């Protein structure tokens, strides 16, 4: 009992000793709290609820005529849509956030990301050119820009260019605390090397991506990394590397396990198909 009284007294004395802080208006505070809650959920991978909270925050900021807060949450929501695989919805939101040609670099990068997900390569390239012009000298978003340029190049069949751009991104990310982007750059390097026929290099890069994604506990990316590792081993089967088929099957099985456990139906189908191909002795053509 004494301890409780003592604690209460300390709290009151402490509060009395401090200068009263300027308090945010309740509506602004509620909007900021919704945004903060959404950001926490996004980091935890709870994208569905995060999206709801960002949408709430966006409405609340719009309701108090805070266009900066509203746009910021619109961008957060678009990012969440992209994480949920709803590229069209993201694009729609981003269209309202800027005019697309001269908008904020974050918006341009997200637009290009959505367009790449929708396989609209030429439009994505145009947006990336605009983004490059907006990113003066060494803007903080430069590594992300390089990764997206590498994605566009790889999607267009320019494997060497993709590999070079992803390599630049890895160098730029070297001293930064941006693990998800570093893993993305490694995954892209693996895919580019694989497209160029370098199975050994691809295997090392995919393994580097997997190590980071495992640390970040991102199931979808981990499953994709295992698929890439499986593909690299399958390419090694062409050079008759002993045990490559077994290694490929083991990697695809890991991808399948992760996909099943995380409820990723699309990746599970890919892994099953790949396992069947390995079982049937199918080797990718040179």
């Amino acid at each position: 009992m004494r301890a409780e009284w003592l604690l209460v007294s300390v709290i009151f004395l402490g509060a009395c000793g401090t200068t009263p802080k300027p308090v945010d208006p309740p509506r602004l505070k509620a909007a900021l709290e919704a945004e903060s809650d959404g950001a926490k959920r996004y980091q935890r991978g709870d994208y569905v609820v995060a999206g709801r909270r960002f949408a709430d925050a966006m409405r609340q900021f719009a309701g108090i005529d805070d266009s900066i807060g509203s746009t910021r949450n619109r961008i957060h929501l678009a990012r969440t849509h992209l994480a949920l695989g709803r590229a069209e919805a993201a694009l729609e939101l981003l269209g309202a956030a800027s005019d697309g040609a001269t908008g904020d670099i974050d918006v341009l990068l997200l637009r290009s990301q959505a367009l790449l997900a929708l396989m609209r390569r030429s439009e994505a390239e145009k947006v990336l050119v605009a983004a490059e012009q907006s990113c003066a000298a060494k803007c903080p978003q430069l590594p992300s820009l390089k990764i997206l340029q590498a994605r566009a190049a790889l999607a267009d069949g320019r494997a060497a260019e993709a590999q070079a751009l992803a390599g630049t991104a890895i160098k730029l990310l070297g001293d930064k605390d941006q693990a998800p982007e570093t893993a993305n750059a490694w995954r892209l390097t693996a895919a580019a090397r694989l497209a160029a026929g370098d199975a050994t290099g691809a295997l090392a890069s995919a393994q580097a991506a997997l190590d980071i994604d495992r640390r970040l506990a991102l199931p979808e990316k981990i499953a994709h990394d295992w698929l890439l590792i499986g593909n690299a081993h399958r390419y090694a089967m062409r050079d008759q590397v002993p045990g490559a088929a077994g290694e490929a099957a083991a990697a695809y099985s890991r991808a399948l396990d992760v996909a099943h456990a995380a409820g990723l139906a699309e990746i599970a189908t890919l892994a099953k198909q790949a396992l069947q191909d390995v079982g049937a002795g199918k080797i990718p053509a040179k």
Partner: protein
Amino acid sequence: MSLLTQYDADARSVRRVTRRFLIIAILVTLALVVAIFVRQGLLRQTVSFSFVADSAQDIAKGQAVRIAGFRVGSVTEVNLRDDGSVAVSLEVDAGNARFVTHDARIELRKEGLVGSPTLEIVPGPDKTRLASAQARLAFSRADGLGALANQVRDEFIPILRDIKAITGALADPQKGLPGTLAQIRASSEALNVLLANGNRQVDGIGGTAVRVLGKAEEDLKHLGQMLETANQRLPGMLDRTQQVLDHVEKITAEAETSVPPVLRDGSAIAADVREIVSGAKQTWPISSMVDAPGPSTLKPDSDPRGEAGRAR
């Protein structure tokens, strides 16, 4: 001498002050005791009632007794009887005893189905007669989540049985779909043979044609019988399907009334908690210790779904 007189006067004064102090202290103590008695309800007039329950689960001494959600009394005693049942006594404020009709019943309810249990006195339809003091009232337990689950299970079991019976009837090799299909197949084969024969013998119509027509007539009659059989069986099947649909409709209607309150309650509780927490955060002195969150930034991730490494 004057010194002694002065001393006596001082002593009298001290005695007077002490006496006054003691009287005031006693009065204050008495006032405090009375206040405590009033606060504890020891001085209020109450009416006692009782009821018998099969179990003391969720019933405890001191538990609130409510009428229309208002606390009007409490449980005073819970005893195990010789026959294994539980005798529960409760007291209701005399002012509120006017709501306790002779046919009133006591219901054990849970706030929001999963909250703390309370006893609710539900007045009966006959408002002309009130329950007498010490009256024994009827008791029942409101359905909890477990009871609802059991109810849903009880509703589902007959449906599953019906589905099983229907699928069994359909799968019956003799009387079900396979049998009917086999008969149709046999008839169509017979008709095919008949047509083939007809084509072959088209030149020599005459007596043969008459026989063929006779055979065709027989087959058509057979087909007619089969269609009649199907016609007889279909209404039965449709009836059973209708019964199943009726069951489903009934459950849906019940779920419509029982499930939303559960969800509403859950959401209301969550909203209450959020409101309490946010209220506490805005209250001095806690408000001066809790920082309002600033604008958030998300870590850049240009490939949140790992699509860049997708197998091509």
